[in-house]
């Protein structure tokens, strides 16, 4: 019995961390149709910000929940002003430029901190189910995923900023005629997406090995999940993350972690073949 509980926890962990990883990318892709291939490096920057401030004596929770998103949000703002704003509407060019950006960020971080692994101890303790061990941090991650979902839903549905953002997403020209400045909306949306990605990096810092090249492990998965989810930010990302996260963990349980990954990639290919517009292009049309 205990083993099933552990597998269920693993699945929950897989889904919530995948969702947290993808949310920032989904916001940027859903709003502006820009694929940010430097997404993995935003995660890496969030993780570095957490580790470095935590090792400098900042409380780990503050480092994770405040420093990481603020820092990466600022970086995102600068990048949007210097690079991304010239590339709206040029999908392929934006992918190339952000790919270059990702190499650049990896290079800068490697030059400063070296190609070594850093880490912080996982906060919160562990608990046991039968003869198996698990950590409370897993539950915390799942809680954070739910909180982030609620926050994004709340901001998008009930605030003026959310209304303007959704309007700009639907029809930038019409929004502009009604007095909204789309450039500013894009700028703030990109920064918010970057900040959420930084938060995800900070949250995953205690449970992953932190190296300058760590983003590469995430970017393909995030890219695949967001595209598989389709245009709707929340429902699409959540459904794709649930599908891929569950496939990954269950596959890894029955075979090896390597074949778990292979299964996810295969699932992504089949999904895109069956639903070329992504999950939300078919089932949650027009939803958030």
């Amino acid at each position, binding site marked *: 019995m205990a083993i099933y509980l552990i597998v269920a926890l693993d699945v929950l962990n897989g889904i919530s961390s995948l969702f947290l990883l993808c949310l920032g990318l989904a916001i940027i892709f859903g709003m502006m149709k820009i694929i940010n291939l430097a997404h993995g490096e935003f995660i890496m920057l969030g993780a570095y910000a957490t580790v470095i401030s935590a090792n400098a004596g900042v409380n780990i929770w503050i480092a994770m929940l405040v420093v990481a998103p603020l820092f990466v949000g600022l970086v995102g703002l600068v990048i949007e002003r210097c690079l991304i704003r010239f590339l709206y509407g040029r999908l392929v060019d934006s992918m190339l430029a952000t790919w270059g950006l990702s*190499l*650049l960020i990896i290079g800068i971080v490697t*030059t400063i901190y070296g190609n070594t692994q850093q880490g912080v101890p996982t906060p919160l303790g562990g608990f046991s189910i039968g003869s198996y061990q698990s950590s409370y941090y897993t539950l915390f991650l799942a809680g954070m995923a739910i909180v982030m979902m609620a926050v994004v839903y709340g901001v998008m549905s009930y605030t003026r900023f959310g209304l303007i953002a959704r309007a700009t997403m639907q029809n930038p020209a019409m929004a502009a005629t009604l007095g909204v400045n789309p450039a500013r909306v894009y700028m703030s949306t990109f920064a918010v997406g970057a900040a959420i990605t930084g938060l995800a990096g900070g949250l995953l810092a205690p449970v992953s090995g932190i190296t300058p090249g760590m983003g590469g492990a995430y970017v393909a998965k995030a890219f695949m999940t967001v595209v*598989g989810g389709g245009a709707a930010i929340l429902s699409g990302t959540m459904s794709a993350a649930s599908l891929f996260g569950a496939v990954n963990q269950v596959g890894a349980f029955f075979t090896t972690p390597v074949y778990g990954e292979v299964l996810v990639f295969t699932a992504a290919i089949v999904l895109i073949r069956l639903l070329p517009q992504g999950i939300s292009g078919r089932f949650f049309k027009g939803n958030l």
Partner: protein
Amino acid sequence: MPARFRLVAQAVAVIVAIIAIALIPSVIELFALMQLTLFAAMAVLALSLAFIWGFGGILSFGQTAFFGLGGYAYAIAAVNFQDSTPSILLAIIIPSLFAAILGYFIFFGRISDVYLGVITLTVTLILFNCVNSTSGDEYRIGKALLGGFNGMPAVPTFNVPFYPDQILSPEQSWWVTGGALLGIFLLLRLLLSLPAGRVIVAVRENEVRASLLGYDPRKVKLLTFILSGAIAGLAGALYVNWGAFVGPTIFSLSLSAEIIIWITVGGLGTLLGPIVGCVLIEYIVAYIGSQQALNSNLVLGAVLVVFVLLLPKGLVPTARDLLMRLVPAPKPKAQHADDRVPPPVAASHMAGAE
């Protein structure tokens, strides 16, 4: 008259390129020759993506899938047969079969742009993960041990066709690799000047219009994809011949990214540009690697960002435009003719760049 002049100029350029390839080994050191051989193998890979991306309009993020398959197919066959002739053929056939299956799945499912990128990317990652986990004695094909993350060392290199004892010397390897590069370049140029090539470009320009004219865009794209897979497979065999080694990093994302950088820097929509971009970038990376002062990622990333923002057309088209402005053409037709001349000339230029 201009047309005839163009033909003569092209023929001269090809002859110059052949002479350059033939004479290079007697001019430069062995180390530089080995490096040039590597660059030429990589340039064949660059041509394979330049063809489908620049002329077919298909941006594949997983060109290394075919490159890696070609490399592994060659290595496994060469270890088993101890003869490179059938192995090279297999290194071309297996990736093209794989491209045929994958391409059928993609193009007949009418999957395009971002979605195509996701699929090609994930296929590459699947291959990387699978090959990476094949360490251990149970993973062997015939006599060939796959070796997982450590790869396959001591792969037999090319030999004289049908004489397995006569292994090619580094000079002969260069002739084969450089010759393959020139041959593929000329093959693609010929294809693009034929009606079939025009159809490929027509599909890139406007799929609906091409299909209204009676062509099936899915079939055209599939054939383009297969041809490019075959070329990438050949590049894989040439690469393995260079290092006598193949490992799973041949499927890596960073190599896929590098091919795209070569093409962006050299010029999308040309065949010469990617070769120039490939040699230039690979040379810079090798130089940085020997200097230890700067991180190569940093430089590559900066180069890519600068090119996308400031020089989106790439080096070769920009240089051509500049030349065009300097040399006022008497007639628009002649200007067009000049347009076509540079490629082979610069191909030889590139071969002699070292």
